[in-house]
């Protein structure tokens, strides 16, 4: 089928309602996007944004309501229909096949390269080349997706969508994995692209909403609570409308703490899944009662570093001194028993067992501890009591503690992990992207908890790509680039421009 290449001059969604068992995900939602317009869709986790977008992409069918493209009613029976109509989406959770290469993933949807017996991979390669050059999105077509960091995967998703000839872009939190410079570039790029196409984008970052969008639609609990021109409203207004209350992200402005070194990494070398040295001679130390923010574009060794500290990845060379004791290449159990807490990057597959209930997930690290079992028999009452307490204390929203952890929203899953890690009374905490994809309310909660722990004298290594998060929370900021610390800044002297330059691999002294 020859794809239709005409422009999409208007997209209208009228009175869309979508129910899930026990949940009204979208309730009578209407919105419209005109030619060259950028519509920002904001709202807290669970407000129905992703559901609405999935309806636009033909993944779900609405229970009520209709979609009009260029004034004509269109029914999407499958993602293929939506695609043929020219709608391309980059999802929050990447729709990539992990054990295929980037090239193969893109070829999957690139029907023009298909013939009954052969797949013209060269044609796909040429197309990727063209697109990545045109938009400045560098990808390695021969890398396997499982080898890529989350940020790199997102880039692949963008390239894929553009390669397949999307004429209307739907972006679900497009900048969550980019440096400030890259974000600015992306915003410029998207702005330029509005000459050719219209965009709907979902974001939690209100600054981006201000910079990029013409119109903003705010959803709360499946309903449109606000619709208007972006220019007329400040980010604070939007934030207040989004949550229904004022949000103040907490800042770390406690006096400097002079604790003893808790974690001292020396000359660490760790290999990535692809076999190269992802962490290449890294030195870093974090004191007790100090938050060190590790900034960097994802894929520069953050994942490997976190895994090596926690015994989940082999250490090639170097030492990881944890309160003076070398824990390099110790088993995960040893590291946990030494007092390490760890909030992992992959919260859905690593931080929890998705099919286990919430209360079972709370004892993931402690099933054998005397607190939760006696002579190998689980103390069910204590497990229940612990779960009820943590659920209340951490405000985890679910009907009860028997709910499967995987069925919770992203913010609640993160709270489950945080609750478990903090309640174990760790001596140190490694937190990787702790608020990625979370709304401001949940992020605020998690930030407060991390700051509380810092005040209690716990050292925290905060690995994040969100500069604001790092600037808000850290006592010191280290920037990782190609597996090394390229520079360290104090809270007082750091700003996002300096960090951004370092993240791009330019040393301070070389900076203009």
């Amino acid at each position, binding site marked *: 089928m020859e794809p239709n290449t005409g422009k999409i001059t208007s997209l209208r969604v009228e009175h869309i309602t979508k*129910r*899930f*068992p*026990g949940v009204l995900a979208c309730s009578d939602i209407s919105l419209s996007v005109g030619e060259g317009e950028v519509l920002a869709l904001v709202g807290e986790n669970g407000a129905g944004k992703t559901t609405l977008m999935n309806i636009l992409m033909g993944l779900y069918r609405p229970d009520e309501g209709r979609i009009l493209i260029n004034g004509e009613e269109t029914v999407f029976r499958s993602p293929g229909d939506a695609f043929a109509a020219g709608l391309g989406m980059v999802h929050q959770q990447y729709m990539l096949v992990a054990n295929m290469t980037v090239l193969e993933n893109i070829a999957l949807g690139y029907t023009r390269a298909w013939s009954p017996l052969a797949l013209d991979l060269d044609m796909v390669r040429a197309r990727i080349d063209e697109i990545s050059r045109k938009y400045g999105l560098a990808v390695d077509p021969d890398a396997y997706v499982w080898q890529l960091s989350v940020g790199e995967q997102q880039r692949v998703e963008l390239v894929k969508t553009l390669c397949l000839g999307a004429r209307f872009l739907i972006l679900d939190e497009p900048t969550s994995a980019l440096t400030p410079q890259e974000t600015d570039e992306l915003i410029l790029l998207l702005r330029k692209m509005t000459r050719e196409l219209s965009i709907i984008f979902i974001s939690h970052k209100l600054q981006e909403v201000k910079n990029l969008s013409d119109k903003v639609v705010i959803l709360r609990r499946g309903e449109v609570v606000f619709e208007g021109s972006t220019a007329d409203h400040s980010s604070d207004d939007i934030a207040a409308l989004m949550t229904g209350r004022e949000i103040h992200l907490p800042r770390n402005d406690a006096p400097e703490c002079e604790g003893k070194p808790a974690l001292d990494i020396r000359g660490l070398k760790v290999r990535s899944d692809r076999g190269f040295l992802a962490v290449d001679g890294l030195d870093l130390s974090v004191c007790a009662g100090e938050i060190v923010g590790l900034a960097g574009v994802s894929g520069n060794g953050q994942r490997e570093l976190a895994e090596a500290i*926690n015994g*989940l990845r082999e250490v090639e060379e170097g030492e990881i001194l944890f309160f003076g004791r070398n824990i390099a290449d110790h*088993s*995960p*159990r040893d*590291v*946990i*028993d030494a007092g390490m807490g*760890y909030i*992992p990057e*992959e919260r859905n*597959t*690593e*931080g*929890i*067992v*998705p*099919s*286990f209930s919430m209360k*079972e997930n709370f*004892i*993931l*690290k402690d*099933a*054998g501890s005397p607190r*939760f*079992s006696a002579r*190998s*028999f*689980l103390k*069910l009452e204590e497990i229940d009591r612990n779960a009820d307490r943590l659920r209340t204390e951490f405000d985890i929203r679910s009907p009860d503690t028997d709910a499967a952890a995987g069925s919770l929203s992203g913010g609640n899953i993160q709270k489950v992990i945080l609750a478990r890690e903090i309640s174990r009374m760790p001596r140190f905490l490694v937190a990787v992207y702790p608020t990625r994809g979370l709304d401001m309310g949940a992020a605020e909660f998690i930030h407060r908890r991390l700051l509380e722990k810092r005040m209690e004298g716990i050292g925290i290594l905060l690995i994040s790509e969100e500069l604001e998060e790092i600037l808000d929370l850290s006592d010191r900021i280290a920037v990782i680039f190609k597996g090394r610390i390229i520079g360290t800044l104090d809270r007082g002297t750091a700003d996002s421009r300096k960090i951004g330059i370092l993240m791009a691999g330019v040393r301070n002294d070389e900076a203009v």
Partner: protein
Amino acid sequence: MTKQFKILYRTVLILLAVAAAMLAGALILWTIGADVTKTYSVIIFEPLKNKIQIGEVIIRAIPLTVIALGLSVAYRSGIINIGAEGQMAMGIIAATAVALAFPGLPKAVLLPLALTAGAIGGAAWGFIPGLLKAKLHVSELLSTVMLNYIAAQFYTFCLRGPMLDPAEITMGSGTPQSMRLTKAIWLDRLVPGTRIHTGVYIALFLAFTVWLLLWRTSWGYRMRAAGAGERAARYGGIGVAGCLVAAMVISGAFAGLAGAVEVAGVHRRAIEGITSGYGFSGIVVALFGGLHPAGIIPASFFFGLLIVGADMTQRMAGVPANMVLVLQGIIILVIVATRMVLANPYLEDRVRRRYCRLTGRSREE
């Protein structure tokens, strides 16, 4: 969601599934020119008509239960054991060897010894693929199937060689079987006139044990975590490799024990064909039973019924037993499909809303 609707929904779905299975089966029976109604009535009602037949169903349900329990431990721990057939054969050999070696021991010693030997035989056969998987990442699908072949050949060798009944040699008939084992390892018959044996208690006891292990102990918790989310388990400091090996050892031990019970309770000697596909049917029973003891027991009874029913249709309705295997296949497919449908809350919700609209009731009820 009203409870009334939920029950109605499930009942209707299950009835629809039964109807679908029977219809598909009827079509096949009709094409081979069999008497459809008679075949069905024989399969479903004949085996339950008298005590003897019910007993036959139960003695088939015993090894199925025991094997399926072991398999559910393995599957829950994330290792797909399809080697129960071979593990069962090794259990039979081990139990028989013990009984042949110590015919003079009293029952109180010999019977537990033989059953333990059976469990160890099966456990050893489960340990190999478990270790290979944990240490070298060898696919258990491959290794367990290959070990099935080795076990089958070894079994044949034992029956024709070292364990062959001396009487067969002198008589010259050469049936490959061991001599009749000493009464000291026989499991007692429970109900006069039937072959139901005390293995029933063993099966029920093991069902309780498996439930206790998987859902009430920290070991079971770790094994289930390793199976349900390997990465998360590793992250949580759980020794995933150890869990895999332990699960395979338990799984193999159950299959081996099923073999030993079968010899001690039913055949009282090792003959060819004791395993007769129990190891494979056990997989279906385990999955059909939802990998949970409470589901596995009724599931084994149901499959015992099908096995006995297959035998009877051949005699009473002139339908070859193999056709019943085809019917079994259809039933399994329908059951699996029904389970998927029942587990789809979205469909249930849609049907419920339509139902509410039809009956004119409010949605919030």
